[in-house]
């Protein structure tokens, strides 16, 4: 009798303790503050879906803080560090890459070595795809997990062109065969400088490590030589004899629509089928990736060093890396952002998720990117742009 009483009182106390613990946990608020650029209706819509899923599965609430500029969140974390806020930070997840990552990493604003703990991270095959652990030439050191990737894809008009160029050298042959039907934007444009980076890397097949280190004059002169020779030959064969180059990448699409160009390129593969649906590109457009590599950059998710919800944040990131979430993100109707998972690491069931969609004929085929060329170290970009303008004149 007594013992049973004792037992019940113990179990009661335990139950009360447990309730208290749960209660305090929920009081702490498992709301993960996800700071991400909010300028795209598609991205925002996808994050709403993520929020619903995560809440249903793990009971974690995700709040998308819609940033106008990612650097706002970076400076907020920096200000918190300066103010001595070391574990109650207001940012739990941040969507970054490139210079924002470089800045956060430099100031020690990101949590280190957590990415390899994620169950789904190995699905990206990081040993094979070094772009998953390199951000504009900087090693990520486990501070950020890959989320999606953008790669340079080319598109051509099948009605006039039967075999599009598959390598940078074939591109020159294409220009010779179809003079005045290719162009690239001026290098102040993002896509313009990206084309130059692609050409530079593709024309230097050996010892590419230098591109992922800070540039110096000697190396730049050695490596860029072949690029200038290539461009000197290409420019006279380009649209308007290379005398006029568009200043905005979007113009390329319009010129493709009119047939003034027969080959163009983009960083957002999903925009091509949607342009076809809007009649801005002909039905006969086809998208593909170069076989000598596609310049690509991966965008990442980081956890600030002072996040108040580190474990929940990791759970969310692991979900973002799951085949299910990645497949949803890749749907053209949702976002159309390329997955970071390597198909080779997935079982047939998981692979099927990515193929469930019937693709528009003009869309990039599934797994159409053969080989991702990571973005070179950021210092190469400025050097390349300056050298281009010095050589080909200041254009507007």
């Amino acid at each position, binding site marked *: 009798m007594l013992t049973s009483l004792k037992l019940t009182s113990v179990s009661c106390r335990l139950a009360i303790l447990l309730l208290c613990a749960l209660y305090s946990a929920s009081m702490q608020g498992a709301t993960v503050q996800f700071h991400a650029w909010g300028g795209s209706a598609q991205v925002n819509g996808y994050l709403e879906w993520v929020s619903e899923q995560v809440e249903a599965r793990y009971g974690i609430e995700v709040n998308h803080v819609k940033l106008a500029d990612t650097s706002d969140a970076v400076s907020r974390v920096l200000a918190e560090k300066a103010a001595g806020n070391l574990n109650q930070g207001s940012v739990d997840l941040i969507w970054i890459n490139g210079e924002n990552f470089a800045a956060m990493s430099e100031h020690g604003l990101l949590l280190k070595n957590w990415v390899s703990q994620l169950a789904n991270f190995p699905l990206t095959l990081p040993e094979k795809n070094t772009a998953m652990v390199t951000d504009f030439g900087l090693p990520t050191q486990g501070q950020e997990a890959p989320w999606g990737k953008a790669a340079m894809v080319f598109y051509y008009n099948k009605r006039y062109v039967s075999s599009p160029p598959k390598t940078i050298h074939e591109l020159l042959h294409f220009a010779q065969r179809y003079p005045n039907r290719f162009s690239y934007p001026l290098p102040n444009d993002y896509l313009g400088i990206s084309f130059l980076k692609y050409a530079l890397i593709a024309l230097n097949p050996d010892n590419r490590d230098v591109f992922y280190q800070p540039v110096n004059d000697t190396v730049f002169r050695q490596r860029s030589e072949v690029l200038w020779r290539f461009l000197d030959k290409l420019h006279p064969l380009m649209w308007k004899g290379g*005398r006029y180059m568009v200043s905005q990448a979007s113009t390329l*699409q319009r010129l493709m629509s009119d047939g*003034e160009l027969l080959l163009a390129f983009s960083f957002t593969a999903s925009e091509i089928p949607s342009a076809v649906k809007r009649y*801005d590109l*002909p039905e006969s457009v086809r998208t593909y990736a170069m076989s000598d590599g596609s310049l690509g950059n991966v965008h990442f998710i980081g956890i600030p060093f002072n996040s108040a919800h580190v474990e929940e944040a990791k759970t969310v990131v692991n979900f973002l890396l799951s085949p299910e979430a990645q497949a949803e993100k890749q749907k053209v109707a949702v976002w159309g952002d390329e997955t970071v998972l390597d198909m080779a690491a997935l079982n047939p069931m998981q692979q099927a998720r990515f193929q469930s969609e019937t693709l528009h004929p003009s869309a990039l085929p599934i797994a159409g990117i053969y080989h991702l060329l990571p973005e070179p170290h950021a210092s190469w970009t400025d050097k390349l742009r300056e050298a281009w303008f010095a050589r080909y004149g200041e*254009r507007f």
Partner: protein
Amino acid sequence: MSGFHRFSIVMRMVFMCILIIPVFAGLIGVLMPAFGFFPALGENQISLQPFSQLLANDNVLSMSWLSLSTGLIATLLALMGALLLVAVFYQRAWLNRIQHLLSPLLVVPHAAAAIAFLFILSPSGWLARLFSGSDMNNPLPPDWAFPYDPYGLSIILALTLKELPFVFLMLLSTLSQPQLEIKVKGYLKVAQSLGYSQITAFMTIVVPMIYSHIRMPLLAVLAFATANVEVPLILGPNDPPTLAVAVLRWFNHVDLSMRFQASAAAVLQLLVTLTALACWWLAEQVIRKLSRHALLSGKRTWGDDVLTLLAVAVVFVYSVIALLLLASVYTWSVATYWPFPQLLPDGFTLMHWQTALRSLAVPLANSIILAFSVTVFAVVLVLLALEGELQMTKHMSAAMGRLDRSIMHITLYLPLLVPGVAFLFGLVWFQQMYFSHLTWVHLFVSHLIYVLPYVFISLAVAYRRMDPRYVKVAYGLGKTPITVFFAVKLPMLFGPIAVAFALGLAISFSQYLPTLLSAGGNIATVTTEAVAAASGSSRRLSAVYVVVQIIMPLCGFILAWWLPNVFFKPSLKANPKNQGIKVYESNP
């Protein structure tokens, strides 16, 4: 003098200050950094460094030349075309028809006209489709030089197309001034009775008489043509571009130190425009000297048939181009896929309109709010300023009156003669330095600078021409000045006020550079969106923007013509010629 009169004289001062102060402040704001002085960027020393940096650029000469040559040629062509049309068709029924053809083109914003030109000039446009349509073996658009041709021919074409109606209507409104009209018609009759053909008589007698009246507007056209941004931005080459486009690019460069070079280039732009004006003046002198002999030669006809043929050709080409432009943008705005060289798209859809109208809602609202507030303010201020002028000049000696008039005249044309790229940037610096958060106020002021002169010019003639007897009778009946102003003058001016209002709206709608600069890109209007979309990915969306740009000012003018008929039209009864768009010359 009554309180109301004193108030109106003060308002006239305010009016002049609004035109003068921003222009001079802007010029100072550009001159300082052009000479290396800009404390905000840590430069406190006067130096010529920005200029030497600018001149080190190989393209400076060719940029300046491109600005100068396109501006001069376009203005000359517009003037010749307009003179030809008036000379051949003056006192003929066709003149009215041509006026109706050209008037709507006047209110189309430059940016819209340039984009529409882009549509027909480009290798996949209608012209190319018409002329290379049959060759099915090579169904690709031709590789021709337009647009973006290195000599700026596309710019010249678009500017001429836009400026010709302006010069033409200026000529007509000058010719419709009562005293001048009587004189012109009398002289023409005498000349014709002496055996001069009508065209020769017009060229030899009337043109020298009316030229001085259209001189200022003509110089304003020239200044605009040498320094405008939107037309060369949309149609011009970029290796190198015109100087004004380069100034814009340098000012907006991420590297803030480029602003010194940009300021130096803005000063150079001022010199280029001055050079153009000087060239024009020189040409006037030479023609005056050389033509003296020709005018007095006694020759009765100067190839009238050829001139008539030419004029008919101008009208024909003009109608075709105008029609092509309009039809082309309307068609693109509803086109589904439209492969080359088909003359018509595969089908039609309202999809682009739906997409565009959704994203245009905010810019449209911005445009309308801005244009309405600026125009209401401008019309009220101009009416008060005109009343002030009347009160002020009443007691002036003749010489003082003339001086006052010419000061007013120069003030009016100041913002139209000083290139926007030269003073707007300087103005923006002052704005950013002192009142950086008042974006709407800056936008308001920079639009007002451009709206005020046109509203003034458009209202001045009607105001000055008003029959003074009504006013005298009203005073005789013991009315106060304020009652006379509101109860007698304003109702009589209802028609002209409506037209001036519509003109003010149209001018505000069409502003590109002032909007872009004053708002720092934060407040979008239909025009800024349209220029941005011109280089965007969708020709169809861009077409919708252009159509909206054309419809907006037209709505204003249709209301301006219609409202006086609905309400009352004492001024129309007093003078039936007041109908139509007339940008009146302020009589010197």
